[in-house]
């Protein structure tokens, strides 16, 4: 019995040692290999389509939906909002130029010592210009995000972990640990569903693979009847495993986004997306 525990402990310690010595790029390559091995028939860039990369029946429905995309109204509303001047005469373009900046987020801000997401930057652009911040999960912020993602389509995901900044690496590692940690009454990690469980059925739905998960946000979900942000979905996932969700744009979810987006480096951005 004691021997069994000693072997288990040694195995965990060996894994811990190898993980602490794995660079983010080692992690990303292993992550990509996990999914390309699990779904060998799926071309790498098709993972940007989430569940539709591995579920041909759902894909056929989705391709029809994409002929009249349900997120189109949100993109239009986001464009109008983007071009509307603030009370001080400035506008979002003073913060984001032409707005096609999705690929620049999330990033590590070396001065502020924190991860900055695009939605956080949108609200900071507002408050810096004397406007009230928007609510994080849906509504105008999701519409602005939808527009900015739409005009960023085709850019490659390119998250950077500055090598000369150990705090950036620590933020990435915290996001990684969050991703693989089981939580909630149902005792699931993100990876349990979207890694080992990817492609398997949960009730009537199939679980999407994690590779490419962040490329197509924000998303119009039929369940929501509107576009919503990635952090809204993070919160929903946590609640589905009966864990208390964390605050949108809080440190936990921003660092989770930092890790998870890095895992999709090199894939094309194709947001906003449409999902059931």
């Amino acid at each position, binding site marked *: 019995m004691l021997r069994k525990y000693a072997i288990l402990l040694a*195995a*965990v310690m060996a*894994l*811990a040692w*190898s*993980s602490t010595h*794995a660079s983010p790029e080692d*992690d990303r390559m*292993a*992550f990509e*290999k*996990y999914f390309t091995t699990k779904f060998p028939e799926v071309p790498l860039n098709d993972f940007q389509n989430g569940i539709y990369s591995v579920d041909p029946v759902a894909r056929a429905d989705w391709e029809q939906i994409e002929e009249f995309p349900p997120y189109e109204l949100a993109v239009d509303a986001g464009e109008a909002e983007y071009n509307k001047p603030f009370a001080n005469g400035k506008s979002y373009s003073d913060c984001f130029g032409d707005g096609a900046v999705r690929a620049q987020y999330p990033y590590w801000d070396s001065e502020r010592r924190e991860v900055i997401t695009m939605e956080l930057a949108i609200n900071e652009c507002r408050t810096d210009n004397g406007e009230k911040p928007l609510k994080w999960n849906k509504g105008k912020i999701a519409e602005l995000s939808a527009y900015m993602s739409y005009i960023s389509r085709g850019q490659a995901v390119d998250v950077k972990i500055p090598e000369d900044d150990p705090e950036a690496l620590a933020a990435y590692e915290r996001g*990684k*640990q*969050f991703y*693989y*940690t*089981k*939580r*909630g*009454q149902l*005792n699931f*990690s993100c*990876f*349990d569903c979207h*890694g*080992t469980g990817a492609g398997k059925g949960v009730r009537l739905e199939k679980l999407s693979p994690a590779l490419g998960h962040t490329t197509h946000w924000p998303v119009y979900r039929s369940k929501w009847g509107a576009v919503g942000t990635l952090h809204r979905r993070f919160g929903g996932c*946590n*609640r589905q495993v*009966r*864990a*208390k*969700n*964390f605050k949108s744009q809080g440190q*936990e979810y921003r660092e989770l986004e930092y890790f998870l987006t890095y895992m999709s480096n090199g894939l094309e951005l194709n947001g906003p997306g449409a999902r059931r």
Partner: protein
Amino acid sequence: MKKYAISGLLVLSLVAGGASLAGDEFEAAWQAADDKRKEAAGMQSEWRDTKKMLDKAKQAAEKGDIDTAMSLVAMAHEQAADGIVQAEREAVMWITRVPR
């Protein structure tokens, strides 16, 4: 008549005293469960329904349904304790799931 009045008062004071004792016991149990919940939250491991159970327990206690209130508090306490055990285990085990 006076005898009945004294007996009635005695019974009332015993009931009130009993209720007060049960109320005190509930308050202590509720606080202990909420402290446990906060400890789990500090470890990023609070479960979804724990706070809801504690809120419902308070409502039941306010209605005088101490049995239901105590039962909800016990469930919440157990959930919070399980969340802490989960967090302690996951602090070591999460790494076993990272693809290599």
